């Protein structure tokens, strides 16, 4: 049992069951917190949803804020395409800032120790502190990239965590020239041009790293799967407002660019008694075959192109590596994540230079509706918010399908891969072996607090049981 799994956001545990011959019989990734937000938000005014639901998470509150805002826009009476252009720009800018800082957090703070020091490195090496000590330049850039995203969020939302940008049908405040100019020039926080340059450098870093380590990056925890993400009408990567597309492991389309409103028609959620996290799947493919990965790797697999030139060039190279077929290499998620960082930096520069970004926004006259559905691509993948409200505007129903929930089955598959390929028939289970289970989970950048909508400090654990149920090995660490 790994308990807690570390350098992930949230609390879970992993159990590995051995048979009498010492072979892995079963491996499971459990999430053991209770989810409550969907219930206790009922009765609140619909316009409170973007403010309340973002409290699900301290890492990606902006994603929940915006997904909820898109949904309550519709209850207010405005479809995404009818939102004032400036409001859409401001929300997109906020969204790209969030993706940029969250991806930087994950790569530099959570994942890089595994890459820089190896999966078998002693535990004291497996932290951002050790990265800072031994790779100072990389650490400094990582810190300032995250800081750039955080400062931009603060400029738009008032504060870095749990701020306010969106209101039903519009935005909370106008963006001022001096606020915009801060990010266009080098200050305490380097400019957006510097962010683009550093993003290119870190993409080059991961490609070089891959060249030297492709044997394990291409094989570790790899398995065929479906992939799900949003795309634009032109099939390009779309992170804020698009249609849902899914493909299977061979690239056949299994969900053909469907509208957000129809998600209930296509998605079901399975449950297992050993986890509070649900298992979403495409209804027409069934629970066994309809599950999909979401997140950076899935998004780059389902899209045809990226709208910004530098990231698009990297996408072409990324797709060429698998000859245009879906990339099912789990560890390539890091490569995909860094291409998205570059795309976000380019998009931030584009938006900062948009003349209409600074306009004042007036909310249009509207007619209230009983229901709204908001879907965006959060850092970790496709995020669905669905609300219903009564005639007084009180929320009567809330359904959240969070990115990490889509990745529940994929993470379980990854854990099973490591259990079969690393732990099977081992006489002694080492700390390094157990860390490999965490590395597989960590590639998905899971946010277990989001997935269960739980509160508090949430670590993750792993235990290996023999055929008699006795504990063979246990991995217990403080949350990281």
């Amino acid at each position, binding site marked *: 049992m790994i308990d807690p799994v*570390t*350098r992930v*956001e949230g609390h879970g545990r992993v159990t590995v069951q051995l048979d009498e011959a010492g072979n892995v019989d079963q491996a499971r990734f459990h999430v053991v917190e209770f989810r409550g937000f969907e219930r206790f938000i009922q009765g609140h005014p619909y316009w409170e949803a973007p403010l309340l639901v973002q409290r699900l998470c*301290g890492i990606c509150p902006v994603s929940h804020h915006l997904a909820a805002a898109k949904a309550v826009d519709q209850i207010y009476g405005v479809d995404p395409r009818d939102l004032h252009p400036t409001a859409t720009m401001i929300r997109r800018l906020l969204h790209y800032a969030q993706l940029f800082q969250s991806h930087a*957090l994950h790569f530099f*703070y*959570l994942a890089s120790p595994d890459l820089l020091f190896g999966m078998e490195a002693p535990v004291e090496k497996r*932290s*951002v*502190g*050790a990265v*800072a*000590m031994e790779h*100072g330049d990389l*650490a*400094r850039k990582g*810190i*300032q990239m*995250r*800081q750039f995203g*955080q400062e931009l969020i603060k400029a738009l939302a008032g504060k870095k*965590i749990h701020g306010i940008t969106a209101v039903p049908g519009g935005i909370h405040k106008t963006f001022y020239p001096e606020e915009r100019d801060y990010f266009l020039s080098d200050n*305490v926080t380097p400019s957006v041009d510097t962010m683009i340059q550093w993003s290119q450098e870190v993409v080059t870093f991961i490609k070089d790293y891959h060249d030297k380590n492709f044997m394990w990056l291409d094989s570790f925890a790899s398995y065929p799967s479906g992939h799900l993400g949003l795309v634009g009408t032109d099939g390009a990567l779309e992170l804020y407002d698009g249609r849902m597309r899914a493909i299977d492991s061979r690239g056949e389309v299994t969900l053909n660019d469907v509208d957000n409103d129809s998600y209930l028609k296509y998605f079901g959620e399975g449950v297992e008694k050993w986890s509070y996290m649900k298992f979403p799947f495409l209804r027409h493919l069934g629970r066994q075959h309809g599950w999909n990965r979401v997140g950076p790797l899935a998004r780059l697999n389902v899209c045809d192109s990226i709208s910004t030139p530098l990231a698009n060039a990297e996408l072409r190279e990324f797709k060429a590596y698998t000859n245009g077929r879906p990339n099912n290499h789990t560890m390539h998620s890091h490569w995909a994540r860094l291409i998205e960082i570059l795309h976000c930096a380019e998009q931030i520069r584009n938006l900062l230079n948009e003349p209409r970004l600074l306009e004042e926004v007036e909310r249009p006259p509207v007619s209230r509706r009983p229901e709204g559905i908001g879907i965006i691509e959060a850092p970790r993948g496709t995020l669905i918010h669905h609300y219903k409200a009564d005639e007084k505007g009180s929320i009567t129903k809330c359904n959240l399908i969070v990115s990490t929930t889509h990745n529940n089955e994929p993470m379980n598959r990854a854990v099973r891969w490591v259990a079969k390929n690393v732990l099977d028939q081992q006489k002694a289970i080492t700390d390094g072996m157990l860390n490999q289970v965490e590395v597989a989970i960590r590639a998905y950048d899971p946010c277990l607090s989001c997935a269960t909508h739980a*509160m508090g*400090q949430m670590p993750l654990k792993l235990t290996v049981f023999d055929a008699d149920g006795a504990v063979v090995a246990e991995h217990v660490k*403080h*949350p*990281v």
Partner: protein
Amino acid sequence: MRILIGIGNSGRNDDGLGWVFLDRIKQEAGFSADIEYRYQLQVEDAELISRAKHVIFVDSYHGVLPGGFKFEPCKVAPDSVFTSHVLPPGAILHLCRELYGKKPGADLMLIQGSSWELHSGLSPEAEIRLGRALEFFRKKLPF
């Protein structure tokens, strides 16, 4: 530049002591310093304090403190465990030195709390201790 960093969560009763301390002290005549509110310290705070001449971390304390508060120099802690959930001030000082080569003066103000429930506002006991800590700190003004 001088910085006060309040650490905590005002939605958890006395865990908000660090924030309330900042709310009160910034209204004092003669107070001049930057203030920052944090749920928890993050790695990037090493960069923030690298630009400071002096930093004071203000946090609530779970144990018992004689007099209800403690003000002491903040020591560099090179052996701290780095996590994304818990990063002690001494670890931030260490990162600041290692990454940016800066050694700002640093103090730690700890105020004893009693209640950590999901409610806003301080407990009556914490209010009394906060008052003592503020009275002590006022003697340091202008900060």
